[in-house]
C-alpha cells in the first residue's frame, strides 16, 4: 500500500509547499508513489488517516497547538517542513517585543479582539521526527527525504556548513564584498543559493551541528565584527532558537 501523506499549514506564507512541490519533474515521480490525503490548498478532500504528516509554519496560537498535538497522535512520522516549522523562522522576530506591544502596533485600539502566543517551532510542542530546514527548503533535500521514507532508510541531514557548498560554487566570499555572511556556521544543503545569487547567507537553515566556533571568531575578528553582531544577524531566522532542538 502507498504511504498516506498529509500536509498541514500553520502560521507562515505557505511558500514551502509551493517551492518544494513546485512542478519539479523528479518530485512528480516520487510523489506518484504516495497518496496525498490532505492538502487543503489544492483540494477539498479531507482525511484523518495518514502515515506521514508534513507540518508547515510555526506555532503561534493555542488553537494551532492543540491541532498539531492531534496530528502528532495520528501520524507515524512527523516532518517539520521549512524554517518556520523547524526554528520558528521569521515569525519569531515578534518575540523581541512583548505580545501586547505586537498586538497594539498592528491592531491599535482593536487589539483587545485578538491574542497571540510567542512564536515557537513545532518541536516546542510535539516530537518531530525529521527537520527539513530552509526558507524555503531545498527541493533536492525533500526528494531525498521522500526516497528515504519510501525505502525505509534513515534520512540524513546535511552536516557541512553553507561555506563548503559556496566554495564548490566558486563564489567570491561574501565577507570580501563587505556583507555579513552566516555561511560559516549555517547548516548547508541549499547549494549556497543566496550567495550564488549575489547576496549573503542569512542563516535560514539554522546552526550546523558542531559549528567551528574558533574559526568563526577569527573570521569575525578579521572583519571587525563581534559575536553580538553575529547573534543579531542569526536571530533574523532563528529568533526562537532557545526553545528549538
Amino acid at each position: 500500500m502507498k504511504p498516506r501523506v498529509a500536509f498541514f499549514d500553520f502560521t507562515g506564507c505557505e511558500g514551502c509547499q509551493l517551492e518544494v512541490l513546485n512542478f519539479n519533474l523528479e518530485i512528480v515521480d516520487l510523489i506518484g508513489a504516495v497518496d496525498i490525503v490532505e492538502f487543503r490548498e489544492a483540494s477539498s478532500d479531507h482525511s484523518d488517516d495518514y502515515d506521514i504528516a508534513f507540518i508547515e509554519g510555526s506555532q503561534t496560537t493555542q488553537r494551532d497547538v492543540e491541532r498539531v498535538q492531534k496530528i502528532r497522535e495520528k501520524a507515524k512520522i512527523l516532518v517539520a517542513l521549512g524554517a518556520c516549522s523547524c526554528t520558528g523562522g521569521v515569525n519569531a522576530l515578534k518575540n523581541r517585543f512583548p505580545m501586547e506591544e505586537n498586538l497594539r502596533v498592528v491592531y491599535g485600539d482593536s487589539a483587545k479582539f485578538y491574542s497571540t502566543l510567542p512564536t515557537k517551532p513545532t518541536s516546542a510542542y510535539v516530537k518531530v521526527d525529521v527537520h527539513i530546514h530552509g526558507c524555503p527548503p531545498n527541493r533536492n533535500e525533500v526528494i531525498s527525504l521522500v526516497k528515504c521514507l519510501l525505502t525505509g532508510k534513515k534520512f540524513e541531514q546535511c552536516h557541512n556548513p553553507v561555506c563548503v557548498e559556496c566554495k564548490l560554487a566558486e563564489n567570491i566570499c561574501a565577507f570580501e564584498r563587505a556583507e555579513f555572511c552566516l555561511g560559516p556556521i549555517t547548516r548547508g544543503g541549499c547549494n549556497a543559493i543566496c550567495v550564488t545569487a549575489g547576496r549573503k547567507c542569512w542563516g535560514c537553515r539554522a546552526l550546523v551541528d558542531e559549528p567551528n566556533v574558533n574559526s568563526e571568531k577569527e573570521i569575525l575578528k578579521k572583519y571587525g565584527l563581534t559575536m553580538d553582531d553575529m547573534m543579531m544577524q542569526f536571530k533574523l531566522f532563528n529568533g526562537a532558537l532557545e526553545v528549538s532542538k
Partner: protein
Amino acid sequence: MTTKEINFKVHHVARVEGHGNIIVNAKDGKIEECKWEVPESPRFFESMLRGLSYSDVNFIAPRICGICAVAHANASIAATEAAFGVKLSEQSILLRNTLFDAETFASHILHTYFLIAPDFLGVGSVIPLATTHTDVVLRALRLKKFGNDWADILCGRKTHPISQVAGGFVKFPTIEQLKWIKNKLEGEVLKDLELSVDLFKTLTFPTFTRETEYIALTKPDEYAFIGGMIGSTDCKPIPINDYLSVTNEFCVPQSTAKWTKHLRESFQVGALARYNINHDKLHPMAKKIAGVFGLKAPCYNPYFISVAQLVESVHVVENSLIILDKLLTRGIKPEKPEVKVKAGRGVGAVEAPRGILFHDYTFDDNGKCIAANIIIPTNENHNSIQHDFEKLLPEILDKPQDEIKLAMEMLVRAYDPCISCSTHMLEVKFV
C-alpha cells in the same frame, strides 16, 4: 414561498491560499446569518520589521506570501527607494518589470487553471481532470513551470527572491537566458495561451453582478503594475503617498485581517479592478482577447476576475516581449546599486496578482526601520466579498443548499488566487 432551512458552515474554504470560513443560516426565506470569516493566524510583520536594517526588511518582507513574494519584494524595495530618494537606471527598470510580469503570469495561470477551472468543469479539484482533460492539465503545468523559470532567471528564486535589492540588482541574466525567455514566450507560451482562451471560452460564468468601486494603480501611458497613482472608478487618481485616505482600514470581530473601505460600502481590487480602470492601455492581443469573452469596462461581475486574469496573462507576455527586445538591443551591463541611506518615510505601491499592495516604511539615519505599515490586497477584498455575499444570497436562496454553497465558494475563489496544486502533477504522470 420556501419553507426550507438553509444552514451551513464551510470551514477553511478549500483551494484558496490562507484560511476563510463561510457561514450561512436562513429559515423560511429569511436570512439570519450570512458571513465571511477570516480566522488566519496573524504574523505581526509591521511589528516584526521594526529595528531591522532596510536590506533585511527587503529580504524578510517578501516572506509575507509564498505565492506573490516578488510583488511584496517590489513594494518593499519601492518604499525603501522612495524613502532614500533612489533613482533606478533604465536597465534596472526593464529587468524589474519583466520579473514582475513573470510573477503575474505564473500566479494567474495557477489561479485560472488549478483553482477556477475545476469548479466550471464540475469537479472538486484538478485531479480528475488529469484523466478527462490530460492535455489541459499538462498545458497548465507547462505554463506554470515556465513562469517560475522566467522569474528564477531574473531574481535567483521566485519564492523567495534574492538578487533584487534597493537600487537595482546584484546579479544579472545572461543574453542567452534572455533569448531563451523570449523564444519561449513567442513560441510555446503564446500557442498555449491561445488554447487557454479556447478552453475558457467554453465555460459559462455565473451572471451575478454588484456595482461597486474599483481601485487599482494607474499611469497615463501604460497598464500599471508598479508605481503611478491610485486610480478609482469613483474619483480622480490619488497620489500613492495618500494611500491611507483610500484604504481606511478597520477591524471587525469576525476577522483577524483588517477590512477596508473608500467611497462606497466596500471596494474591489485585483485583475478586474485593473481592467476596469486601465483597459485602454492593454496591449493589442490582450484587448482582442477581452473582446472574445465579451469583457467590457465597467464589468461588475466578480466571477469575471478570472477572465481579466487570462487577459492580463496575454498582456504581460506582450509586454515582456517588448522589454526583452529592448534589453537584447542595449545589452546587459553589470551595474552596482547605489543607495544613500537617510532618515525618512517612503511608500511603495504595486499591483500584486490579487490587487493593489502598499508597503510604508519609516527609517532612521542608519537605515533602520522604525515604523512599518503594510496593506495587502486580499484584506482589501474581504469587505467586498462580504457585500457580494449579502447581495448574492437572497438572489439564489430558492436553490438547493449545495448549489448555494458552491456559488458562494466559487465567489471566494474568484477573488483569491494562488495555491500550489502541485500535488496533482503525479496524477498526470499516472493516468
